[in-house]
């Protein structure tokens, strides 16, 4: 926790918010008091004993479905983002390092992928390959990859032409050393800012996909799906929708606060030695 003591209050709050939602989504299934798929009673029933949030559109326990439902959405979005971002980072650095035709070809290909609206690209892939966990991860990676690639490529270009990279080349350094030790550090600041936008966007994308019915399939529980299934009953029993919405909101805000803090830390260490 030494790391945390140096960060600002808002960062600590942000990290706490993210950890809290992560705990819910990971350990939620162990805490669920009831079977999330068991039909208890009347649809949209108000809270009663043993069922503090009442029942959902099919008469299942809202609380249990909420506790279990965080897992997939989060896993898919985080893993999907990480795969896409890592591939984008690697390809971006590789493209800038290689220059010339390789660079043009990769850039052209990424532009083509960016040409598809995110949701449309994901819908196409899911429709073609069927909605399973890995297909969703793949679809999300394909959305993130070209965008991260483009960012990394533009951020790395100045460093590629710098004389420290030239010196490293004339010294006889390998491709990977130059890509990761010499160029990548100067890509990190925009990469982190971008992560702050892209992780929440990925979570929202996965939630939207579930909402459209192409994400995790019923009867499995998922926050996006829960919102989709219960939104008609907002006036009858708002509780079953509120918690997933709140959790998603808390997660978005938390991630942004945490990444802002990381940015500031980097900036601090980069201030000129005036003090």
């Amino acid at each position, binding site marked *: 926790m030494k790391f945390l003591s140096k960060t600002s209050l808002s960062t600590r709050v942000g990290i706490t918010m993210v950890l809290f939602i992560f705990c819910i989504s990971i350990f939620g299934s162990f805490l669920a008091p009831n079977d999330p798929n068991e039909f208890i009673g009347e649809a949209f029933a108000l809270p009663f004993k043993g069922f503090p949030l009442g029942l959902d559109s099919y008469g299942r326990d809202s609380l249990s479905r909420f506790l279990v439902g965080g897992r997939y959405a989060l896993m898919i979005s985080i893993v999907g983002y990480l795969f896409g971002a890592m591939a984008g980072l690697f390809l971006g650095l590789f493209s800038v390092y290689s220059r010339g035709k390789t660079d043009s070809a990769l850039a052209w290909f990424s532009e083509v992928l960016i040409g598809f609206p995110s949701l449309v690209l994901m819908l196409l892939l899911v429709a073609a390959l069927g909605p399973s966990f890995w297909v969703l991860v793949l679809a999300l990676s394909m959305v993130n990859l070209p965008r991260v690639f483009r960012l990394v490529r533009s951020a790395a270009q100045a460093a590629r032409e*710098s*004389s420290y990279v*030239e*010196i490293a*080349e*004339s*010294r*006889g350094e390998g491709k990977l050393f130059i890509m990761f030790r010499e160029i990548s550090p100067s890509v990190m600041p925009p990469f982190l800012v971008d992560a702050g936008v892209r992780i929440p966007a990925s979570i929202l994308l996965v939630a939207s996909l579930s909402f459209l019915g192409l994400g995790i399939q019923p009867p499995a529980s998922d926050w996006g799906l829960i919102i989709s299934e219960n939104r008609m009953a907002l006036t009858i029993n708002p509780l079953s929708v509120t918690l997933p919405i709140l959790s998603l909101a808390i997660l978005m805000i938390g991630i942004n606060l945490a990444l802002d803090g990381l940015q500031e830390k980097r900036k601090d260490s980069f201030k000129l030695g*005036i003090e």
Partner: protein
Amino acid sequence: MAQSENFPASEKILKHSNLLRVEKIQVRDNDSRFTIIDDISFDLQSGQTFGIVGESGSGKTTLAMALLGFSREGTKITSGSVHLEGENLLSLPTNVLRNRRGNKITYVPQDPSTGLNPNVRINESLREMLDIHLPEVSNPKDRIAEVLEMTQLPSNLEFQRKYPFQLSGGQQQRIAIALALICKPKIIVMDEPTTGLDVTTQSKLILVIQKLIKETNTALVYVSHDLGVVRSIVDQVAVMYGGRIIEQGNVSDIFSKPTHPYTRGLLEAVPRATARAFRPKAIPGAAVEPWDLPPGCPFAPRCSFKSLECDSKMPPVQLLSDNRMVRCFNLTEASKYKPDLIALDRKLLEANDSVSRSIKLEVVEISAGYNTFREKKDSSQNDVVNAVSFNVSSGDCVSIVGESGSGKTTMLRCIAGLHQPRKGSIRFGNEILENKSKSRTLEMRRRIQMVPQNPDSSLNPHTSIGDIIKRPIDLYFKLSPQQSEAKIEELLDRVHLKSNFLTRYSRELSGGEKQRVAIARALAADPELLLCDEVVSSLDVAVQAGILELLQELRIKTGMTIVFVSHDLGVVRSIASKVVVMKDGVVVESDLTHRIFESPQNPYTLELLSAIPNLGKSDYPGEPQK
């Protein structure tokens, strides 16, 4: 601050003031943590030229801007006054002040390529100045043509409709001067207007400035780190150090009989491109930064004449004659001192040459160029280096000299394997070098190391100095951690850096220190050939002399061969034993250094030599006896 004691003295120096009177200006940062310039007073009459010289960080630009009542972001003018024709600019309301700037007092910034808006045509920007300040001018077009002619630019409409980016650096700077001139101001403040220009362009611009000042009777404040340029332009000069004026007076007095130890040190460090010269001598230590000024004299930590008093008290202003002042406690001791300077004479250079050495590097008929997209690879039209040949003996230092665009850097990059020549071959020792550094063996790459031009971009800002120096050692030698640590220590010692630098990052270092790190990184490979690309051109003279001393020392100690690319003949004079002069990609003259300076054969070499604003024979420390 010792303001009260020197008040009477500054009062005297200001007694004739009529056009501009600057009194006790102080500029501090917004939180008042440190003082950037302090206690600066001088005055200026119309038609007079006033030079401000000093190293980077001495506060000369801050002072120049303060004259217009301007302070940079994060700083503010905390006290003092700037009276222009009896009106205190610092107490004027913003809108009135804005009217004075550009109208009565104007500013020419250092870099014209960023100082001019690339989206506005030349005549539009000139017209804008007139519309704002002198809307009553009846025929603005005539005035625009007039100032363009005054700055010796074409005044036709075709030229006027150009955009700044269509002009050369020298032309851009003339436009900046025309902009400053168009409203017929009383004073022009120029901040390093010729820095970054080629010597021949610079000498033309200096002529233009001299002529303008004479014709228009405008007063000029000229800020520069180049003592030669200042010598040739101004009448009065102030030497700044640590935010103070430490010596001030007539330019000929200051340059021929400097009294302050810092002024002497600065003049000893200036390289001269004359037939007879001393080797530039560095001032020990590094320039002070505003945030760690010592309590007493700012120069005390580097001064060899300092007494106890210097560490605790700011020396007061002493008047030596009517308009000559200096701040120093130990003038008498300092004036007795004779520096031990080494004359760069024929003997010294020939001694180097008398030993017959094997040829280390042989460049044969190298042609190289940059291909544009559509043209074929073998087109000789784009060659920037054309059939260049020269040899370098082992343990020698050969210098390639030329203006920008002469192909000297491309030549060096060909040797380093960073640029593929179109024709020709390079022999290193007994081997023919492969064109691409990628196809060379690791051992060959170790033997040839390069120090690039700009130390700001040659060190990775995200890597610590220790890691930067360690990397070549790890790559080329298999050493145990203890051995490599010992080697790093030794390298730092060789480039005169302390071992506490290892954990620092390049942004925490000064320009000279960065360049030392870059040299240490090259030395870490134990190279046989060191390629130096303009390694001192971005450094102040005092620091530059230190790097030159270091390279000389390394060459003698390790027997390393050096190829030294530079545009500055004075610098070359002090380090190279042989000079190759390049122009437009062709070698125009190549000879031993002393012969080039004593009897240049080629008209271009002669032109280069005469374009350098040298210090004169009578200027301290003078020339060595024959």
